[in-house]
Each structure stands twice: as C-alpha cells, then as structure tokens.
C-alpha cells in the first residue's frame, strides 16, 4: 500500500537519495565481501543481508545519528550492517574487521560488525544471542537516569527471541521504561530452523503485550515504511513511553552464512522474494515519483561501488596484527604474561638466589 502512494514521509529528494545510497552501500559492500572471500582475504564467516537491507537502513535513518556522543544509540547484528554504516561505522573498518586486520577497530581480535564507537553511538554485538537486549537495556537506562534526550535501538533475529537473555533484557527495559526500540529481524529462518520451530506465534508483535509494551509489524522490504514505523516508535520512546517493538517482515534470501547452501529452503520461495528486492522496489519508486533521475541513481550506484572498491583495496594492503597484541588489554592494569615456560626464570632455581 504505502509502496504505491507517493508519500515521502516528509523527506526531500536529497534525503530520499541518501536512503537509496545507504541501500546501495550495504548491498555493494556485502558483494565486495564475497569477492574478497573468493580471493581468500576473508577468514571467518560471511553474512549477507540480501533482501533485508531496507530494514536496517530505514530504521537507522529514522534516528539521530551524531558524532559527539549525544545522539541515539545502535546495537546492530551481522544482518544490519546498513544501520552500522549510517551510524558512522567506517566502510574500511568493515572490511578490516572481516579480514582480521590489525588496523581495524578491534585490532583483529573480533570479527565483522563486532566493533564499538560510543561517540558515534554504536555497540558491537557478541555472538551469544540475546545478550545485546540486556546491554542496550542498560545503555538506555543510563539515558533515562541522566535525563538525556537519546533513544537506543537493538536488532535481533526471530531465533534470538527464544533466548532467556532476550526475555530478561526486554522485561527489564519494559519495567524500567527504558527508551529502547527492539527491532526483530524476522527473516523467517534461524540458520536452518524455520520460525515456527522457534515460536508458536505468527507475528512477533504478539510478544509485545506480554511485556506491556507496544509493538507493530512492518514490511521490511519497504525502506520508507520502516523509516516511518521507527520514527513513530522513537518519538514515543523519546516522549517517555518506554520500550517499543518493531517487527521487520522479510526473507533471508541467502544461506545463514556463505558456507550454507540453504538447500532446506524451497527455491520458489526465494524466487518469490527476489521480486520484493528492496533496492529494486525503492529504485522504481524513486523514478516513478521523480525523487531521482536515472542519471542520479546510476551515479549513486557507481559512487558506492567505487567507495567499496577503494576501501577494500586499502584494507587488503594493511597488515595483520602483531602477534604479541594478543596478550594486551585483558585488564586495564594487569599484564598478561606469555607462559612462564617460554622464558625460564632464574629466581626459580635455588642456587641462583642472590
């Protein structure tokens, strides 16, 4: 519905083109990753958000993104790189992380979107699912305690909703009325497990009332619909109405990770969803409603492609971390030694005593 209307939700052409640019960047960056992996530059798992880009982009676009520590706050997932970029996550850092470079924000200690910038307002996730709901409950609690005009947004998957951490974090945020927006990425799969094996409900919005919080479901392939839903949700959170849930409905069009051929998914279903590609849909609307010309669109696509090429090249050229770095930063004040046996210590020999 909203897709066919010409409603721009108050956005001007420049902003609409920024939205399209963010979608392109996400898509192109992930395609570049695949190339890098084929070339052997990517060591760990590679996760695509193909078909889900509009969810991350539309949602992040609706929040206040600043670079001085006063803006809103994001906890993305591997499927929400688009949101991370909008919050100021640098493209080159994205490639550095996937390629385990020592120049990356975690200096090669962690992978993919697992990195931090509290000034720009994002916290990298850990792998154990559900944890970030708890952490973001505390981050947004601090906003409330200090009377800061900030909201938080945490992404998580349909499968992650089964974890106890999700329940404990969400319930805490609800009771404490934390300004937190919960974005459930319902892509209908948790690895090979269909959503109905993770929950008996048809829509995750049915989980909101059990916590006394509002919830709404939105077409996750429609970047403007997502933008609108999250803008409304954030307005409520900002106004002191506490936590709120937004379900992104879409489909995971690639395997869980690159190594997953996804042979458990009906190909026709995937074909169905290819017709709902968020970039194609939004591009068509841009042209249809004259929000951008074909030339402008082509330029955006070329610019983002070039950005990715350049950033990837830069990251490739950078070194892996120094081995010794592995022993740093375990504590702020306690040094971690290499095992004693690697450098026998004279004070352990009685004769050697001074």
């Amino acid at each position, binding site marked *: 519905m909203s897709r066919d209307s010409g409603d721009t939700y108050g956005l001007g052409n420049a902003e609409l083109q920024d939205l399209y640019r963010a979608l392109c960047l996400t898509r192109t960056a992930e395609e570049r990753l695949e190339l890098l992996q084929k070339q052997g530059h990517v060591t760990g798992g590679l996760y695509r958000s193909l078909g889900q880009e509009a969810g991350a982009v539309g949602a992040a676009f609706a929040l206040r993104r600043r670079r001085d520590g006063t803006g809103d706050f994001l906890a993305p997932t591997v499927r929400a790189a688009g949101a991370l970029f909008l919050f100021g996550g640098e493209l080159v850092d994205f490639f550095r992380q996937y390629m385990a470079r020592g120049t990356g924000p*975690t200096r090669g200690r*962690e992978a993919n979107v697992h990195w931090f910038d509290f000034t720009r307002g994002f916290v990298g996730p850990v*792998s*154990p699912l559900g944890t970030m709901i*708890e952490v973001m409950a*505390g*981050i947004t609690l601090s906003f409330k305690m200090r009377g800061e005009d900030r909201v938080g947004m945490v992404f998580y998957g349909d499968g992650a909703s089964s974890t106890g951490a999700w329940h*404990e974090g969400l*319930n805490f945020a609800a009771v404490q009325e934390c300004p937190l927006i919960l974005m459930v990425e319902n892509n209908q799969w948790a690895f090979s497990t269909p959503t109905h094996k993770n929950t008996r409900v048809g829509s995750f919005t049915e989980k909101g009332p059990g916590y006394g919080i509002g919830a709404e479901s939105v077409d996750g392939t429609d970047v403007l619909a997502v933008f609108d839903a999250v803008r409304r949700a954030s307005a409520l959170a900002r106004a002191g109405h506490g936590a709120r849930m937004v379900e992104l409905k879409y489909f995971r069009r690639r395997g869980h990770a690159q190594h997953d051929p996804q042979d458990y998914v009906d190909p026709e279903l995937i074909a169905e969803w290819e017709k709902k590609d968020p970039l194609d849909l939004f591009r068509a609307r841009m042209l249809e409603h004259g929000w951008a010309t074909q030339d402008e669109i082509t330029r955006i696509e070329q610019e983002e492609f070039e950005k990715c090429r350049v950033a990837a090249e830069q990251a490739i050229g950078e070194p892996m971390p120094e081995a010794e770095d592995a022993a740093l930063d375990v504590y702020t004040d306690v040094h971690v030694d290499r095992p004693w046996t690697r450098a026998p210590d004279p004070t*352990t020999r009685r004769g050697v005593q001074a």
Partner: protein
Amino acid sequence: MTDRETPEHLLKTKRGEPVTFLEAISEALFEEMTRDDSVFLMGEDIGVYGGAFKVTRDFLGHFGESRVIDTPIAEGGFTGAAAGAAHMGLRPVVEIQFMDFISPAYDVITNYIATSLYRGAGAMPLVIRGPVGGGNRGGPFHSQNVEMAFFHTPGLKIVYPSTAYDAKGLLKAAIRDDNPVIFEEHKGLYRAPALREVLPDEDYIVPLGEARTVREGGDLTIVTYGAMVHKCTEAADTLEKEDGVKVEVIDLRTLLPLDDDAVVESVKKTGRLLVVHEDTRTGGIAGEICMRVSERAFEWLDAPMLRVTAIDAPVPYSGSLEDYFLPQTDDVLTAARYLAAY
C-alpha cells in the same frame, strides 16, 4: 540528594564505634555513592527492604529510586544491563541476593563483561557482590562459594575478604577499579561479633591483588581466604601453643589476580605449604596455587603441598551433613601437623 542526612546505623565509624563485617560493607557502598554520583545499585529487594541481609538498608530513602534499583528476578538481565550502563560511564554495583544465583548471569559475565575491554569496548567498571558460603544450614542453593565458576575467566577480578577492615577497603577499591570485579561476602562473617572492629574515619582503600600476612611463622605456610582465615589462625595458635610449630597464615583477599609473589615468598621461607579453602576440592583454587609454587619455588619445598577443603559434593542441608562436608579446624590441625612432622 546527598544533603539528606546519613542514616543512623551508618554513622558508627564516624563516631569511632566498632562495626560488623556487614556494616563495613554498607559503609563502603554508602561512601562511594556519596563520593561519586556515577555509582549506583541494582538488585533484588535492595530498595524498600534494604536487601535480603540488609546491606543497603535506608539507601533508597537517601539516594532515591534511580540509584537504588529493585530489579525483576533476572540476574542475567540486570547484570547485562549493568554492563551497558558501565559502557556509558556509570559505575554499577549489582547485588546477587545469594551468590548461588549468579549462575543465570554466567553467560553475560564470562562472554560479554569479561571480554569487553579486549574486544575494544573500553573499561568495564562493574562490581557484582553478594553473600556466599556455608555453615548456615542453607542447603545446596544458599551456601555456595562461586569463585571457581569465574576464576578461569581472564578479564575478571575476584575478591573475597575476611575482615571488616578489608571488606570496606577492598569494596571501595573494587568500585573504583576499571575492571569487572566479583565480590564475595561470607554470610557467616556478616554479623560475627568477633569481627567487629573500629575502622579509620578517613577514606581508605585496600588495593586489589595484594595478599595479607595474617600471622608470621617460619615452619609452615597456610594459604587461605574468607571465613577459613579465622579457622586457620585458630589452628595456628593451637599449633604454636601445643606443638611449638610456627605457622605463617596468608589471607589472599583477592583471588584473581592471584598474589603468587606473597605465597612464593612465604614458601621459600617455610618450605611447607598447606592451602585451605571452604569451597569443594576438585578444581578448587588450591590447584592453581600449588601449580604456581611448583613453577616458582619447587626447590624450596621440603614436603608435599597439601590442601584442606570441603568434600566433592553439593552443600547438604542438614547440620550433621554440612559439618562433615565443610573443612573444620581439626582438619587443618591434622594436615598441618602432618606437614610439620614431615
């Protein structure tokens, strides 16, 4: 809020009166919250009720609801939330009603909190404190010691005080520390009359990572911590009186990082080591201590390194069973005499 006057029962040190182990902890929390607005408390029943053991009695009225937060029953949830608040520069202190119930927070503590600095997220000033230990007929779920659930996790610090002075000074140091600290309070010490002492009126801390020599002696080193410190000094006195054996008793105070320098130095003097802990035997901290002494002072050993501990079982409820389960002063005497005569 801090112009509100200090609750009666928190003025003892001001007045130069002796305080219990529990009151020392309350004072540490109160003083740190007064000193630093970024310190706040979360936990179950810590507000109106003042905590299951009344450690935070009257804190709610003094500091208000936003700094003394009664949480849902969700140790993982509020500990994870504390981590988020710590990211934002706050210094949360969470109370686990009984430390046995820290287990639902095991995931977030070991995977998120302990690795936070390493993963690039900066300091994690967070204290997780609560009552531990047996002897109170609490049964399997109200008597546990939890140090060995976390001792193996790099990035965490673990503190386990044995006196009122140390409890206050160590808790203040823990709250000011930029690393996550697990702070164990033996409930058997909370109100022990023998532990009441007059504390310095001025602000002080006891630095983390430094053991304390409770009692000097040249014949045998006993390394211990928590409630066992008192059983060990009792045994040491007996040994001196009855056997003329001079025992050096070392109170670790901080378990992680482990002050092996203090242990090694003492063992190089005495040549004999006995480790005593209330926690169960297999996988207990005695092993790590023994390993480090073997690595660093093997040539000074004149006898096997031994340990006195609880037996490898859950903590039983009935008194007769629990007394058998727990290490007793007589067990320390038996082992110490065996070593002294070795």
